[in-house]
């Protein structure tokens, strides 16, 4: 059974998520684009730090279960 992740709040009317760390993001980038040289990884690191910070900010913002993403889905009809 996975343990609750730090920062998460399970209240469905004020959900807070857990954000990935910069290391987790870096591991994912490496997995997809391997092999990356050390200097390439080092150049990407500040971007991943920024991204991890942005994701942490968003994860800490409480959302209701009913908060829909923008843009909303609209069914399509040609006529």
């Amino acid at each position: 059974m996975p343990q609750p992740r730090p920062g998460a709040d399970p209240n469905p009317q004020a959900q807070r998520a857990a954000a990935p760390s910069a290391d987790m993001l870096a591991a994912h980038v490496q997995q997809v684009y391997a092999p990356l040289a050390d200097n390439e990884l080092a150049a990407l690191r500040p971007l991943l730090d920024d991204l991890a910070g942005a994701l942490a900010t968003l994860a800490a913002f409480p959302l209701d279960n009913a908060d829909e993403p923008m843009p909303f889905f609209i069914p399509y009809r040609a006529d």
Partner: protein
Amino acid sequence: MAADEMLDRASVRELGRLLRAGETTSVALTRRALDRLDTIGRRLNAVVTLLPERALAAAQRADEELRAGVDRGPLHGIPYGVKDLIAVAGAPTTWGAGPLREQRLAEDATVVKRLDAAGAVLVAKLAMVELAGGMGYEQPNASFTGPGLSPWNPDAWSGGSSSGSGSAVGARAVPFAIGSETFGSIVTPSACCGVSGLRPTYGRVSRHGAMALCWTLDKLGPMCRTADDCGLVLDAIASHDPRDPTSTTRPYHYIPEEQRQEGFRLAALRGATENAQPEAVANYAAALDTLRAVATIEEVELPDLPYGAAIAVILRAEAASAFDGFIDGGGIAGLTAPEDRLRPLSNIAISARDYLRAQRIRTRICRDLDAFFARYDALVAPTLPGVAPPIDLPFGQALRRPNPAFALGAAGNLAGLPAISVPNGFGERGLPTAIQFVGRAYDENRVLAVANAYQRLTDWHTRVPPL
């Protein structure tokens, strides 16, 4: 003043009067525009492709129609340029990127078709930051045509990503141009080049035929010599387009005669000049003093919401998708800015869940900002905390000062709000400074009314660079 020089200074509205009075012709205006673009425009790295055959044929047609009593409206016979992410059949559409310099698209973009129908004369495809800056460029030299240069000082950046549109209008090479904005790409070059640039409400102008960087943020809009001209151009290009499902069915008409000229209620962003250059601070204070003649001004703060984080995640995730094959297939290796060849790889790390959380927060942002902006005709702030940066400095050293105007840019683009940037003085190295007016969604006419009122009280928009 020589006749040519007078034409270079005139607004679209003034040129229209001269055309109808028989004091100039569309062919003369078009030849003048082609000549200035080929000389000054090329020196400023503002031009990708000139279109002399198409332009002169269209100008001749415009003159014949006027002589026959056929008048297509205020843009009839007026030359213009488009940012090179807008498709024009028969010409390359490079998106500013070296690997795509031979790309040809089969059909004119809707915005070009609309301007054709309005009688305007397309003379050039104008330079831009590669892929509209979506790969994360960090310095001005990020286009295969070279860094865009400000007409006010060739050692300074033109701003981006609509660099050529800003430079060409600022250099008085074309009366107006079409730019695009995902996050700052119309208002920034407008400020750096001393022109009036309107970012319309998201969905106001069809993007069919324009490069997609971020589907939920991309907008097309006019860059002109005056705010009034921005209204004239928007009137011609705003429309619902079934080929762009995000284009709005809300009608738009620019009727300046019906606009208020005073009694505006403005909000001024608190702390808007934090870390700004001294001249930008002084020019902003002077602009507020001027505006008090026609407006009440209340100092405000934006609702406290995570604008910067949300726009970063949305923009980076959508750009990663819009260019997934180009990135994964190695297309980025041919880009000009070294950082653009590597930085996009980081965006793969954004999960679908993280992207959707950003879009869910965006819904809150849109609702809260609508309630906020409903209380004012416009919010005023400096467009940038200073003048255009030097072309040889990375943005990290030149631009990234903590300043509330950054949050305003993120907020306004996330919520799809209209904004106009107009010049309000000069600062370091003879470069222009600017203020912006941001309004409620679909209220372009209110921000235009405020900007028109400001330009009636000042003459910064009439200044011409020493080229």
